[in-house]
């Protein structure tokens, strides 16, 4: 198969009573996670791509095919869902309950011999061939969702949309499906858009992430870039970054920057563009990057900067890490450390401890504005298209 890399371009606006959706996306053969709270417009974006919802204006284009176009000066186009035929996987599977798994998968391929053979191959690919003749209610949730994915693939569309597809499933099943999804994407060069409000899911499956809030994209970029350089405090909070510090820039030097935080000097790496000296900035330090300091041992390079003193006020075991809250001045700093760390240190509540973190751990966020760190080029005008 020598199909060139598919490209999906989405630029839509739609006003709802409680939400104005304004989304611009360019997705290639990759897994893009649409992440955001309920009601942010994630589902509506998928519905617009599939043709189940009509935007007020904009364009949706897959390669040379215009799915939707409503722009002044351009011909209006709105392909019905059945002519877009994008793979769409719903949260509650939406399998046809009166058909077997095989009949479900054969629905888009046609129920003739060839269609059924193709459907069977897809079930085989999803490791479900032995369940081909079961009805959906005789399958587990994970199996049902595999059938649903096979059925979506049967449309032969380069696009696969997943709408909270795995959120009703148990964690081990979900992990397996995430792995399968990544393999499928790479194998078939699919444009995958994965909608979730679960941060763990986003990290488990995504290559790039678009963070949606109130119908708009706050930030889009690789997971790494978005975590390292959140566009604003809202994004940082949605990404689960804790330990917010508000301070004033007192000095900038090459790639170093110093903040004054309530009289304490904090050293950080300088973001680009550099904030001006005297400006107010917000900074985050990930809880797992803050260390406790052994008073009787020499300082390691992890803690020879940004040494602060505070009192332990709370400690709790977490799912993966142990959490300790330290009150520094009036601010609560959360520290997460491995279960086996600090066994030689008294971390009981009320203890006064020293904490430290590296300048590289401090994430500086511009005070205002919506920074979109997209590496994708802006869409080129499309001169030729077919309807």
């Amino acid at each position: 198969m020598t199909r060139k890399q598919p490209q999906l371009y989405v630029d839509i606006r739609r006003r709802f009573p409680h939400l104005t959706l304004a989304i611009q996306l360019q997705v290639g053969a990759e897994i893009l996670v649409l992440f955001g709270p309920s009601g942010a417009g994630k589902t509506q974006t998928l519905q617009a791509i599939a043709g189940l919802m009509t935007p007020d204006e904009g364009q949706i284009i897959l390669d040379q095919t215009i799915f939707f176009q409503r722009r002044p000066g351009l011909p209006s186009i709105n392909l019905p869902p059945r002519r877009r035929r994008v793979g769409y996987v719903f949260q509650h599977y939406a399998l046809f309950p009166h058909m077997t798994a095989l009949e479900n998968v054969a629905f888009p391929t046609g129920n003739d011999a060839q269609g059924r053979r193709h459907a069977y191959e897809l079930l085989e690919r999803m490791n479900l061939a032995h369940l081909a003749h079961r009805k959906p209610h005789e399958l587990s949730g994970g199996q049902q969702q595999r059938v649903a994915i096979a059925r979506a693939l049967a449309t032969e569309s380069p696009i696969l949309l997943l709408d909270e597809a795995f959120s009703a499933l148990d964690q081990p099943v979900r992990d397996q499906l995430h792995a399968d999804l990544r393999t499928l994407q790479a194998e078939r060069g699919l444009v995958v858009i994965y909608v979730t409000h679960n941060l763990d899911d986003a990290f488990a499956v995504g290559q790039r992430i678009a963070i949606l809030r109130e119908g708009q994209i706050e930030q889009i970029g690789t997971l790494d870039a978005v975590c390292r350089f959140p566009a604003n405090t809202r994004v940082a909070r949605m990404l689960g970054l804790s330990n917010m510090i508000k301070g004033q820039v007192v000095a900038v030097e090459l790639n170093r920057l110093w903040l004054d935080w309530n009289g304490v000097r904090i050293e950080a790496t300088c973001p680009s563009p550099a904030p001006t000296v005297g400006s107010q900035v917000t900074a985050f330090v990930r809880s797992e990057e803050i260390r406790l300091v052994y008073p009787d041992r020499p300082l390691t390079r992890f803690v020879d900067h940004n040494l602060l003193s505070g009192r332990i006020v709370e400690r709790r075991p977490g799912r993966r890490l142990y959490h300790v809250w330290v009150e520094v001045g009036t601010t609560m700093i959360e520290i997460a450390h491995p279960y086996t760390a600090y066994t030689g240190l008294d971390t009981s509540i009320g203890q006064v401890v020293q904490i430290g973190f590296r300048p590289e751990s401090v994430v500086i966020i511009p005070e205002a504005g919506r920074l979109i760190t997209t590496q994708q080029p802006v869409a080129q005008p499309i001169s030729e298209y077919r309807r």
Partner: protein
Amino acid sequence: MNWSAFWLSLQVAAVATVCIMSIGLPLALWLARTNFPGQTILETILMLPLILPPSVVGYYLLLALGRGSPLVEWFHIRLLFSWPAAVVAAVVVGLPLMIQSSRAALANVDPRLEQAARTLGAGELRILMQITLPLARRGIIAGIVLGAARALGEFGATLMVTGNIPGRTQTLPIAIYDAVQAQRYQDANLMVLVMTAIAFVGLWWVRRLERSPEAVTPLSEVLQNDQEATAIVR
């Protein structure tokens, strides 16, 4: 046992059932799918024959089919006091049951299944034939059975529009009334038994349809919260 009345009743009920099906199903589909101003009023009017005294329905039918009605004046179709008038009466009283049952079943079909079918390349007719109707089939069949049973048992309105002409317009319920009036109780007993048996079998079948295991939505599906999935906006 009045066999001519029995066969006439079957004939009326059969024709009426076909009419109930072919009028009721599209109407139920339309009512389940659209929202328009005055919908509640239209639905109320369609349901009225369930509640109104049969004599009132019969009187309206007399007006609709009798002299001075458009049917007679413009099309010269005279139905009164013939068996087709009994069909009309049976359809009017049977239709509400058909509409109510099949409308509820059609509205119960998860719109997400139809959305899914659309994204899978199906046109609206294919979705109707392969998804919507098969999934609503129990309710539709129940509606047809109830409508047919009601059509078979129609008495009051039929009496008013067909009269009571033995061998020509006398249906089984009217024949029973006639037999009781004439104190032919043995005749009446047998016909009452036949009617009861037919009604029982019909209702029993409907109950079975409703209670069969496949008709029940799996509890897990009901319990799972819907969240955004319900926010299907057109």
